[in-house]
């Protein structure tokens, strides 16, 4: 009755992963994220996308701010700039202005992008600079171990809102669409 399930052998699976070539975009440093974190998948997605698009590693610049998500460039085999808290977008804009042959990817979290760096979003959107911004929104400050963020839910308890978060969370997509981001 039961269809025989083809067993997955670790060695074979690894061989398959290695052979598609996207590992060339992975740096030798192992990610410092916690086990189970969604950022691993994002990193995997980015390396696969770069591979599919045949973008040479030497032409990729990943710019990040501060936070868990912003450790991203260290784990990619490309040029990287781990900048200051909230300043991802203006630094990435500068890189693109200086050399538009580069593929520029800006990376950050919700604290970096919507709190301290919130002021830059509208201007990056209206300028429509040719770059990709990956904002990993987990609704919490992770690197500093659990403080409230601009996208934390109402009533959420964190170390800085020990009773409850009383601030309305920001609605990122509505905001970005209204600024004309594409």
């Amino acid at each position, binding site marked *: 009755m039961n269809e025989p399930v083809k067993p997955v052998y670790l060695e074979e699976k690894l061989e398959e992963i290695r052979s598609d070539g996207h590992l060339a975009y992975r*740096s*030798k*440093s192992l990610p410092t994220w916690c086990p189970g974190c969604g950022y691993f998948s994002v990193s995997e997605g980015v390396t696969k996308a770069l591979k599919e698009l045949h973008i040479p*590693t*030497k*032409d*990729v*610049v*990943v*710019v990040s701010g*501060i936070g868990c998500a912003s450790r991203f*460039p*260290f784990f990619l*085999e*490309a*040029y*990287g*700039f*781990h*900048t*200051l808290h909230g*300043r991802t*977008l*203006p*630094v*990435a*804009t*500068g*890189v*693109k*202005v*200086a*050399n538009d*042959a*580069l593929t520029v990817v800006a990376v950050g979290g919700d604290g970096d992008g919507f709190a301290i760096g919130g*002021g*830059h979003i*509208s*201007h990056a959107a209206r300028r429509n600079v040719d770059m990709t911004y990956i904002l990993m929104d987990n609704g919490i400050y992770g690197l500093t171990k659990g403080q409230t963020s601009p996208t934390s839910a109402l009533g959420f308890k964190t170390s800085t809102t020990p009773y409850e978060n009383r601030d309305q969370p920001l609605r990122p997509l509505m905001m970005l669409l209204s600024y004309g981001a594409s």
Partner: protein
Amino acid sequence: MDSTDLQIIICGSAGDGTIAAGDILKRAMARAGYKVIAFDLYPAEIRGFGKCVARVRVTTEQVYSLKRRSDVLVSLDDSHAIEHVGEVRDFGAVIFENAPIARLREGRHMSAHVKPGQVPYGLAQREVCERATSSSRSRNIVVLGFLARMYGLPVAAFHEIIADKFKTKAPVVGESNIRAFDAGFEAATAYFKLDDVTLGPPSHVAEGADTVMMTGNGAVVQGCLDAGIGSFFGYPITPATTIMERLAVEMPKAGARLLQTEDEISAIAATIGAGYAGSRAATATSGPGLALMVEMLGLGVMAEVPCVIFVSQRGGPSTGMPTKTEQSDLNLAVFGGAGDAQRIVLAPTNVEGCYRCAGKAFELAEKFQTPVVILLDLYLSNRYETVIFSKDNIFEPNCSKAVEKQDPGQAYQRFQLTDDFVSPRAVPGDVGGMHTVTGLEHNELGRPSDSGEMHTRMSAKRHRKLEGALAHGDLNICKRFGDEGPVDVGILAWGSTFGESLEAMMAAQAEGIRCSAMKVVMLSPLPVDLIAGFLADCKEVLVPELNYEGQLANLVSGQLGRPLSRLSRVTGAPMQVEEILEQVRALAKGRAAA
């Protein structure tokens, strides 16, 4: 008389055309081959009744500042000009409106204030202008015609400059202003010349492209362009805005890019991004903007990214006095930011220096992979000088330490520790140079590291690599003028105040005081050996500067442990030569004046 030294003040209300008249005057005199230094004072508001003062000094010999005493005062509005009568020297001239349009209260007319010994020239400015142009708007041009006849100023040069100035307007505007000039010239034929102001022939005739009259900010722009600036990011702020405005015109023509960002933080962030990507990148701001930028400046130091920051200082703290000059951002420029973040800071002392420092800043930033701050101030940014440029481009197009070919298996070390502490630098797009830079302390590969040993070694690297900047070619980081050997009084000065210091030194020498003056152009890293050598020769040392605390004096005495006499002024105006001279005299006698 062969040697000319003529200073004219024009004073009026905002809207009278005071600054425009001064502008035509200085351009015409420069066109005729004279050396010119000019500085205008104007209110923060564009219209209204604020006071405008244009001062123009015309000479045949090289001079370094404006004079305290002018030879001629032209009043376009007595209510403002009366308080400047005292600036006119004995036997100098005062030119004013002698047919006011309304009755004036007693004491409100210039004629009541001209001092004994000064020569009054009443001129019906309005009437002459109305007869020539059927409007009184060109009164400011009428007085220029009057000056031209009285002092034998070059009429042809004035005609050219006036035509030039109005060439974007309808032709009648230029023609009408030329008529106003000629009417003023004609009116002056009816006057006996009683004052002793004279103008000799120019010492040399300007040879087109070589002699240029420009402001400090204009010279900064020229320096940026000649050094091959690739990207500029800025946010408007007085008195630095004109740098960005001029670059916005010139950079696209040179294939370079300029972007007005949303704030100063983004301006320097993008500048650092562009510097990281290998472009010669700069931003320009004033003190309040620099205060916003220092966090990013620290990132530039840590990540070893070349970038250039022009800072034109104004009165502070906070919003302070936006249209007044001051030198109070030395501390911020040299020390601002978190941690031990040594950077290069240069402060040019004149307009030619603005050009040289601007271009050299890109070389230094690239060679030492660090932010370079150029400290100007409103007085230097806005004042006009005639500058002689060499026809050859004096700036190196590429000073970056290249990555040598490395083994395929070997990882590129962006922060490799080397003998001169400067690491070979790869930029995005270079094959095999992939690396990540960070504001975190890092190892040679650029990977985050917080080991005590690594932090010690990297801190030493970031500081000691700058030692090479002290020996960078074709740049006077520090220079002594005046008497050699032991002197009674040495003047140690920086920025725009050095011009006045040099004039004061020469005046002191003429009085028999042994005196020399040293300009400190590189404020960080400080050329301590050169300064120590100078101080050792001086019985007394005076440090004149436009800030309350004596920031250069603190910097130097902090590093050299020698007490210095300070002359600190925060009036919003340039330091007066006489004030410095008075202190020098007192110190030479063995005591400081109060």
